[in-house]
């Protein structure tokens, strides 16, 4: 299935939204406007975008500490996200969660997560719910190369396999877990090779090529929807920034960093759009302008919103 022009332009808009959101977060963090830890998705925009393109609101995702991109790609609202980053009461979590815990259960977003790998079994549970209810909804689990060394990875993949759950595991292999590079934390080159340990398909794609990501994910999602069980899709990519804002990333090889910056997924998509005559530079600039205005509005919304009040401390602990 060849992607249509409007689909690709949609990818561009989503990726641009993530990009603009994250660039703004860099700025705001440096300006001490964002408390806590902020892990950015800059450079990895093609992954969430390419994957979520095959999902609807009935489908579930579990996200990670580096979750802004997943949220935006799954339809999350940038104003509520931004307000949450600021710790404001108008944020997605009323300021109680912050960047690492944004969720929108209505949209099927079962949360960013501060515990590396924790989303893996949670996504299996969501996929089980889809199957139990005999719906054709699926779940998608995002996680990093580092997270693929956690026990949860093993248990969740095995469980999903034996129950043939409608689940797609997306490994965002950005080659590092904090300072620990992949060749030091595992001895296989492709995380996708781990799929064989469960007897499910595993593929590796260029995670900076949104079309490649889309195609691989679409196939895996279709498989899941049809009842053929889980798959593992590895997307090789690169995080542009330190692990969190404030990390100078001295452990990174500068040449590698530069080589990857040249593979900017947005620039590559932009080129394709223009080559295929799916969009003109002006149209793309328009998209960019629109997106930046949205982000600016989100920041204003966040800044102007009130902080939670002390009484909020003890609400939402239990459901009544």
């Amino acid at each position: 299935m060849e992607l249509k022009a409007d689909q690709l332009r949609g990818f561009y808009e989503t990726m641009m939204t993530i990009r603009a959101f994250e660039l703004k977060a860099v700025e705001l963090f440096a300006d001490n406007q964002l408390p806590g830890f902020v892990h950015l998705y800059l450079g990895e925009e093609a992954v969430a975008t390419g994957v979520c393109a095959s999902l609807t609101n009935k489908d579930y995702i579990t996200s990670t500490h580096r979750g802004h991109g997943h949220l935006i790609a799954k339809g999350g609202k940038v104003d509520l996200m931004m307000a949450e980053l600021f710790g404001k009461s108008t944020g997605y979590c009323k300021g109680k969660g912050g960047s690492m815990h944004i969720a929108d259960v209505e949209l099927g977003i079962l949360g960013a997560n501060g515990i590396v790998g924790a989303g893996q079994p949670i996504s299996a549970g969501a996929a089980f719910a889809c199957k139990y209810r005999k719906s054709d909804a699926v779940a998608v689990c995002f996680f990093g190369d580092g997270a693929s060394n956690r026990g949860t990875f093993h248990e969740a993949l095995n469980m999903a396999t034996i129950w043939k759950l409608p689940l797609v595991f997306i490994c965002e292999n950005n080659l590092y877990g904090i300072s620990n590079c992949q060749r030091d934390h595992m001895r296989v080159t492709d995380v996708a090779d781990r799929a064989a340990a469960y007897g499910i398909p595993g593929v590796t794609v260029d995670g900076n090529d949104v079309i490649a990501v889309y195609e691989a994910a679409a196939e895996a999602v279709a498989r899941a929807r049809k009842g053929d069980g889980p798959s593992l899709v590895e997307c090789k990519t690169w995080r542009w920034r330190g692990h969190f804002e404030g990390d100078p990333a001295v452990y990174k090889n500068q040449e590698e960093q530069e080589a990857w910056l040249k593979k900017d997924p947005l620039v590559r998509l932009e080129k394709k759009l223009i080559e295929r005559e799916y969009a003109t530079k002006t149209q793309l600039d328009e998209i960019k302008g629109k997106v930046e205005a949205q982000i600016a509005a989100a920041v204003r919304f966040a800044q102007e919103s009130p902080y939670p009040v002390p009484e909020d401390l003890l609400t939402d602990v239990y459901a009544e």
Partner: protein
Amino acid sequence: MKEMSYAEAIRDGMRFEMQRDANVFIWGEDVGIFGGCFGVTGGLVTEFPGRVIDTPISETAIVGAAVGAAAAGLRPIAEIMFVDFMGVCMDELFNQAAKMRYMFGGKAKIPMVLRTPCGAGMGAAAQHSQSMEAWFTHIPGIKTVMPSTPADAKGLMAAAVRDDNPVVYIEHKQLLGIKGDVPEGDYCIPLGKADIKRDGSDVTIVAWSWMVHKALAAAEELAQQGINAEVLDPRTLVPLDTAAILKSLEKTGKLVIVHEAVKTGGFGGEIAAIVAEEGLDLLDAPIKRVAMPFAPIPFSPALEKCAIPSEEKIIAAVKSLF
């Protein structure tokens, strides 16, 4: 009313909830044809096809996936074969299940029950005999239930399944076979209501789970000796019926807390602290705790029986206050 065992009552409670709500299901290791390590789910797999599910030996996935299923609208009853295995999946319980709702600003519900047996007394040694409720009570966002009788087991199971929050439901291995009258059909005991298992006026013994029975036996013996003990079973530790404890103390002025878990850091400390804070003037004697000493649980029955709080130790503790 129907006489049944504690294990049957738990099963009856689960059966009723599964009939009542198609979203309720059970999973855990060997809960299907094997019926669970202690037979508690026996037969349910044939009564409820597709809803009683054997898992691999993957506790983090058992609990983690239950959290995901609950977040997605189902009502899992997840079994962990021994409470001692909870160390494997505490993250899923305390960082995920317990906190999701709060972290998400109240926009998620995690209606799940984590069923697990606790307790010593069968020579199962240090990794299969523990009582770990104190850990759970320290986790905001979950509730902790520890029934001591068949009727309570059934009524609290209904409440646990219907609760929209994660509930840790701890059944005691030594109680599975005890018999008692249990209301038939729909029977639900609200969480957070203590039960006076024996009325008394001279001393309040707070005990839960297996220890209720030891406390009752001790109370009978004490009665012979002229001391009339009240035995108060909180039944649920979170929420805790503090009012009932303070009320009993108004009458008795003396408090002995009995739990099977290790004394240091046990939930008895919490109860003592609440009383020392909110009811110090009700006390006319020190607060005594009778609990497991600070050691792993030994295998040899010769030693194990010295570790488990006994009738004799309860009696001695009570008498030391007079």
